[in-house]
């Protein structure tokens, strides 16, 4: 092949490539074409190996012709590549413009715990941080632990206050979480720090603010030098923690057979901020924490020496606390099984467009 023929051949190859380019639809195909033409074994690329067939004097010229051709083809390919990439970018931009980034996320129903459980867990975490252990007791309780061990003999007027569900087997549905006090003392001895959350039952007519089934958490702390100021300090800490804000407390005498002295700790009403409203019966205070120093007879029932040890106990109405925290006005919804008033709507429903 002389130089002239070579020139012709190159021109043919170039023309064929240029003719093909418009029909190359994407960058991958373009790369394939490039390889077919400019690759080592490509139409143009392979020509360079023919250089040694020419006389040495012509070789320089041959090389130049081939390289020039390669350069032109490369430029044509690059031009096509730029056009293809621009088209892809345009398509991408068009797709992006059509996309609605404001569409809501996909919502799957979430699980939830009962509001009382949520408050209970919060209190448990607080007391665990204070070194208390969490105890449990049976809901079907022996008369002894529910009454006698708590210094409430059969003839005591306090049994009036405890309208009790009696079972035909002579046991009771516990009227309070206090039976766990004596059970825990017998199990661990003193010193002792426990709380005991759980369900309690009282024979009571149900209305918007009274339930026969409710939750309490019992607290009991026994050590060598436990005082009333200790009790008040801990109660105050507890109420602050549950309400997640600072609260005021008022301490006054109260009467419960299993404590002596007996106290009532009131919290400033969280609904009217102490100004007086129907919830606090205009007093500005809400009774939240019946408590006191453990009665010596109760310590003795738990086989703890009242001379060496003293302690305090309290009973916190978890149900009422949960109602205050979550703004539940009617106690009956808590045991109704209806999920609506006890589960945040967003946990169960799809995207909400508007809500009042």
């Amino acid at each position, binding site marked *: 092949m002389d130089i002239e023929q070579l020139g012709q051949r190159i021109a043919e190859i170039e023309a064929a490539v240029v003719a093909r380019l418009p029909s190359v639809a994407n960058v991958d195909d373009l790369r394939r074409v490039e390889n077919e033409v400019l690759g080592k074994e490509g139409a143009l690329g392979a020509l360079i190996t023919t250089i040694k067939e020419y006389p040495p004097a012509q070789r320089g010229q041959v090389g130049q012709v081939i390289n020039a051709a390669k350069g032109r083809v490369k430029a044509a390919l690059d031009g096509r590549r730029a056009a293809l990439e621009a088209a892809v970018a345009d398509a991408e931009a068009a797709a992006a413009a059509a996309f609605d980034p404001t569409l809501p996320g996909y919502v799957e129903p979430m699980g939830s715990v009962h509001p009382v459980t949520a408050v209970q867990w919060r209190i448990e975490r607080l007391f665990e941080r204070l070194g208390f252990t969490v105890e449990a007791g049976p809901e079907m309780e022996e008369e002894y632990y529910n009454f006698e061990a708590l210094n409430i003999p059969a003839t005591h007027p306090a049994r009036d206050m405890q309208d009790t569900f009696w079972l035909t087997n002579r046991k009771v549905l516990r009227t309070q979480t206090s039976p766990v006090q004596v059970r825990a003392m017998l199990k661990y001895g003193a010193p002792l720090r426990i709380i005991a959350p759980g369900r309690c039952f009282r024979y009571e007519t149900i209305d918007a603010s009274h339930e026969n089934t409710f939750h309490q958490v019992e607290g009991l702390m026994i050590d060598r030098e436990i005082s009333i100021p200790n009790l008040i300090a801990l109660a105050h800490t507890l109420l602050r923690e549950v309400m997640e804000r600072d609260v005021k407390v008022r301490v006054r005498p109260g009467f419960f057979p299993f404590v002596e*002295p007996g106290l009532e700790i009131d919290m400033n009403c969280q609904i009217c901020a102490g100004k007086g409203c129907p919830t606090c019966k205009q007093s500005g205070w809400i009774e939240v924490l019946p408590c006191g120093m453990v009665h010596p007879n109760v310590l003795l029932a738990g086989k703890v020496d009242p001379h060496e040890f003293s302690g305090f106990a309290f009973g916190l109405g978890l149900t009422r606390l949960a109602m205050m925290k979550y703004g539940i006005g009617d106690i009956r919804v808590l045991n109704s099984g209806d*999920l609506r008033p006890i589960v945040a709507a967003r946990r169960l429903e799809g995207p909400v467009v508007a809500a009042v």
Partner: protein
Amino acid sequence: MLISLNWLRDSVDVPAEVDPHELAERFTCTAAEVEDVHRIEVGARGLIAARVEAVSDLPATRNLRLARLDVGDGRVIETVTAAPVLRVGWNVVYAPAGAAVAKLGTIGQAKVAGRASVGMILSGDALGVEMAVGEALFAEPALAPGTPLPPEWFDDWVIEIDNKSITHRPDLWGHRGIAREVAAMYGLPLKPYPVVAVEELAGIDAPPIPLEIQDPQAARRYSGLRLGGVPTQPAPLWLQLRLGRVGMRPISALVDLTNYIMADLGQPMHAFDGSRVERIEVGWAAEGEVFRTLDGVERTLPPQTLMIQSQGRSIALAGIMGGLETEVSEATTSLLLESANFDAATIRRSAIALGLRTDASARFEKSLDPVNTVLSIQRFVALARECYPDLKLTSPLSDCFPNPFPPVTVKVNRRHVTRTVGREVPDDEVRQILGPLGFDVTAGRRDLSVSVPSFRATGDVDIEADVIEEIARYCGYNRIPEVLPQVTVRRFEPCARLEVERRTLAYFSGAARFSELHQYLWYDSAWLTTLGFEPGACVELANPAATGLHRLRQTLLPGLLAALVRNRFHYEACALLEVGSVFERAEPDDAEFRHVGLVCARRQKGGENELYHRLKTALEGWGWECFGRAVSFGPAAVDTARPWEHPQRTAEVQLEGRGIGRLSAVPLELKRRMEEHLTAWAIAWAEVRLTGLEKLSPRTEALGRIPPHPLVELDFSVLVRREVRYAEVADRLREFTHPLLRRVAYVGSYEGPALPQQQRSLTFRVVVGDETRTLVEEDTAAFRATFEQHLASCGYWTRR
């Protein structure tokens, strides 16, 4: 209980500048809870006493009458009145023209029913005695017509004390006891109690009343006195007004006087018609005895009812209510006054059994001070003489007190005081606190010896802690600085039961996305009938909240299904969760167990399979999460008594090879019974007994590791007849062993047009590898051949 501030001032000079609200707040924080404080503002101006001279009907009207009143200074006026009862010769409260009360404004002259009416006879409600609406109040005869009635008799403050906060304080059931606390709170002296000396009462020269107490355990003390020259005129107006302030309706002189003493000292008294009672015996009612109380009701007496009797016939229900037969009336000229002390439990039991709670029984239930039987008579005579100078004592004070109460003295260890109050309380301060409350303190070397006054010694204060309470409350609970306790650190074993419950709740409400709810502890019989469930022997309530709620639940399912019905219109799907107690009859003791119940439901016909698997997945996750163990599922014989168990879809939930619960789907038949709408729903459920699982210590799962050489995954689809169970295939695959085999995992199952009829394809992913080298083509080819050979030997086709 209602307390009048005017009345309190008889015993303690509360300074005029003390705000009654402040007093109430202090009382609440020191003694007992005040529920309400309110002002009685009668706004009386220019009221006088007037005597009724004549009363005539006004024919044209239905209930109006014309009264002629002597208004003093010889003046007589006529006024029209609606008061239903007016007695000629009695005094009324009269507002002349120009006088005023807040409720009615200024009273003038008017023409009523054609008659000129001057001024007005005031009714109880206009004077702040709310129980006497429209009824005239009568004033005592000692007030001459025209006597101005001082405005300060009418205006008052009423303090309402929460009865529940004084159940342990019999002394606080009267004004005198409240006054003692108020005096101590303000450091004021308690004024002497105006009484007639016992010596004078005992010295009357007349035969005593024969008194006999059958059972001194039940009737501790009985004191009595006979009186003659009994007034027929009303009690003093000021006294009636005070009764009105504390919620008692003025009735007649004698009743008002005894009520006044009860509200003053807390000691109930009873007045018998003296002519009908010869002697007093306190004894038990006869079996089946019927007795007519003074409210006119015939009552059959329950056993162990304590009665006041006279010559064997019952005349009063002891401590509760008098009898009709011996009631005082207008004809009564002589009285037998009773003031007694009864055993609290005896009176309480009878009052409850009779369904008759009275002001008297409410007080006797608190264990009253036996000293007050005599003190109340002393006070009664002093008060009655003041009002009725003609009164005569016709018997000496007669008193039967078989077993006088020994004085109570309590040793108080100073260290215990310091420990409870949180600071040292010097002896002098203790004396300053306890003295005004009636306690005597003698200081010993280590202990204080504290003698308890009789009015605190009937069960209220009898141990050291009771005395420390008195000291602590007067040190001021709100004045002690808060101090967090110093503690002994101890390690406690966590409560295993709660640990399991907490992890269970956290898992199901979190990762598994169930909503927790609470249900009642008892079955609702009506719902069980709907479900067609007969629970058999249950632990039962003796006093259920309502009929049909007497059986305690043995399973959480009926409650969860009821909750599902309640939620069906509000959600397209729901997943319900409850952790709670269930109960079983057992010997020797009935048992309580903790269960977790789960219901998964969706509005989708035929979705059971998917829900069943969702629940199964959740239970498997729970097993790993809570115990680090695999939950497995075994075949279960369907319990036909439990209609929520599906005949084909029921499995036993197992942990460590032991059955711990059930997994199933609700059959169509039950959905139909529950609620027609639920037939369009798929419902799967599971219930697991948590009790017993607390013994499983949570196992720590080994973590994954990166193998030194790459693993190769090979998928095999096994073609089996449709009725061949996965478990059977998996068992056969488990039999296969090979040195390169690392793991066999289930990928999925397929049935459909690509397969021959009645066939199912189960796909497994087999992972192979070697610890020492990278596998080559030949290794995997050889493994594949061996594995397929095993499948063939099991009779399974391999689908390519």
